[in-house]
């Protein structure tokens, strides 16, 4: 296991370094800079120059990049330019919310994905197959901002059963927190669940056609057991890798869903920071999201190796 990690670490670090370069360069390319935003609509050029000086925007770019990376390594992320407060606090607040949303969404992805996959692959009755097809196509076709608004319209406004937006942290009040989490998590999860479902369905169908299932059937093992004990363990490892990739999409997709449900997560913060050209916040956020993605990749590869003995022993 450690040898495996050591082999994968250099490539992960390479991706992180490249990501930091891309984030830094991208922001410098974007026209408009924090000083203009901070200066407000009616400030004079003098104000704007004073702010540029305070934020150190006139230093040479490499110096700014090294200062940023230096700050990262020593843990001092420095103040945010436009939004106010320390970058570290801003991200800490947002992180809790986004982790909660992503995990909630992952739960839905696994539950719905499994249901779509298993029913899609094994059900014989036409109605079940029909509904699974409609749901998966719908989940893929209807963009999250439409499902979001529809869900709010039905559950919050018409039925008044669930809150339309906002968040109560799960840790402080779990029973309330869940009710806030339900709709955004479902909305974020639907497209990924459809993709996972289709992938799992393919995996199960391909495994059921393999010889060892024929051997097990000939030995008189019941079809249900065949599916859960024999076919699924084979179909699972590649699905775990896909789940890792989906986590990346969930993090990226949060921008949309958080806007619809006023969920104060990192996606919301990212959009605000980008609009206000708050360089440190955006850069740290992008790097954080990439780091999480890379870690999740490593994790899912490990789990994949764990689940498939052939790989583990190599």
């Amino acid at each position, binding site marked *: 296991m450690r040898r495996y990690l050591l082999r994968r670490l250099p*490539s992960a670090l*390479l*991706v992180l370094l*490249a*990501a930091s370069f*891309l984030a830094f360069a*991208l*922001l410098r*390319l*974007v*026209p*408009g800079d924090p000083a203009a935003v901070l200066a407000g609509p009616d400030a004079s050029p003098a104000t704007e120059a004073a702010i540029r000086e305070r934020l150190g925007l006139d230093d040479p770019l490499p110096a700014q990049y090294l200062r940023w990376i230096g700050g990262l390594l020593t843990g001092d992320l420095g103040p945010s330019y436009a939004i106010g407060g320390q970058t570290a606090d801003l991200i800490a607040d947002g992180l809790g919310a986004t982790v909660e949303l992503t995990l909630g969404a992952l739960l839905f992805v696994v539950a719905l994905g499994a249901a779509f996959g298993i029913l899609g692959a094994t059900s014989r009755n036409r109605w079940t197959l029909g509904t699974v097809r409609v749901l*998966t*196509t*719908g989940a*893929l*076709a*209807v*963009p*999250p*901002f*439409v499902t979001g*608004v*529809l869900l709010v*319209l039905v559950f919050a*406004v018409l039925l008044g059963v669930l809150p339309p937006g906002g968040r109560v942290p799960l840790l402080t009040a779990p029973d309330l927190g869940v009710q806030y989490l339900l709709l955004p998590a479902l909305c974020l999860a639907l*497209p990924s669940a459809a993709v996972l479902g*289709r992938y799992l369905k*393919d995996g199960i169908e*391909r495994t059921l056609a393999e010889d060892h299932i024929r051997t097990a059937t000939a030995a008189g093992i019941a079809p249900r057991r065949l599916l859960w004990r024999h076919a699924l363990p084979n179909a699972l490892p590649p699905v775990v890798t896909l789940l890792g*990739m989906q986590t*990346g*999409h969930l*993090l*990226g*997709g949060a*921008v*949309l869903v958080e*806007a619809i449900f006023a969920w104060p997560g990192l*996606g919301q913060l*990212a*959009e605000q920071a*980008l609009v206000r050209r708050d360089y440190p916040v*955006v850069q740290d*956020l*992008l790097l954080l*999201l*990439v780091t999480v*993605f*890379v870690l999740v*990749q490593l994790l899912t590869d490990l789990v994949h190796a764990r689940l498939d003995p052939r790989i583990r022993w190599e």
Partner: protein
Amino acid sequence: MTTLAAAKPAPARKPRHPYRAALATARGRTGLALVGLVVLAGLLAPLLAGHGPTDQSALALAGPGTPGHPLGTDDLGRDLLARLLHGIRADLGIIAVAVPLGAAVGCLLALAAAAHPVADTVVQRAFDLILAFPGLILALAVTAVLGPGRLPVILVIALAEVPAFGRLLRTGILVQSGREYVTAARVGGTSGGRILTRHILPNAADPLVVQIAVSLTVAVFLEGAMSFLGVGVRPPEPTLGAVLSQSMPYLAQAPHFAAGPLVTVTTLVLGLSLTAEALNREIRR
């Protein structure tokens, strides 16, 4: 020179190309029909639509079936049927360029990876980076840099497709180059380049065809999201995503506003996924 009795080749009619056979199945045909319907609507937009997509009028939020406006009008009094058809045309224009562009770049990188081991690690890390970068935030930044219009949308969609095709082709090449007919070709004196183009690529291309159908679905999805965040195509030009996001505030009072694009996107995605499934089943046989 005695030759054994000439073995009569098994009577086999000329076999059709596997893709044509796949698309002839019931699933394939329905899929193609649905996609064809939407594409046709897009192509014939100028003929079918009575009004220009950007002609405004005083008649705001008229319901479906009002004379002259079969699907009704939007908040600025523009004919929804015209905006829908021209929206399809705009969307098709974008994804018809973006997905092949992404595929081409992805495949080129995969070929580079196949050529040289060092290039292989670099390309793989590049794919990881593109996948790791949160899509929508990248979209916001790219549009901010390039300004509004089709180009950033095309670039973002293409970029999102690069790793999908790149990885698929890279694994495809690895698998095929291990096959016996490649060794046979090498022993038969065929040059490396020709082995790649005539032997490995045609066989490694199958999964890519399926991926095209899946990628088109993702492209429609991404264009909608970008329009919703206000970084899509330059207004007042309509796209499915733009019309959909404009219809959101009126969902409660004028649902017909959102119905048009929603039905079209669903039909397109259903058609594409059916075609992808038909092709997939054929390739796996």
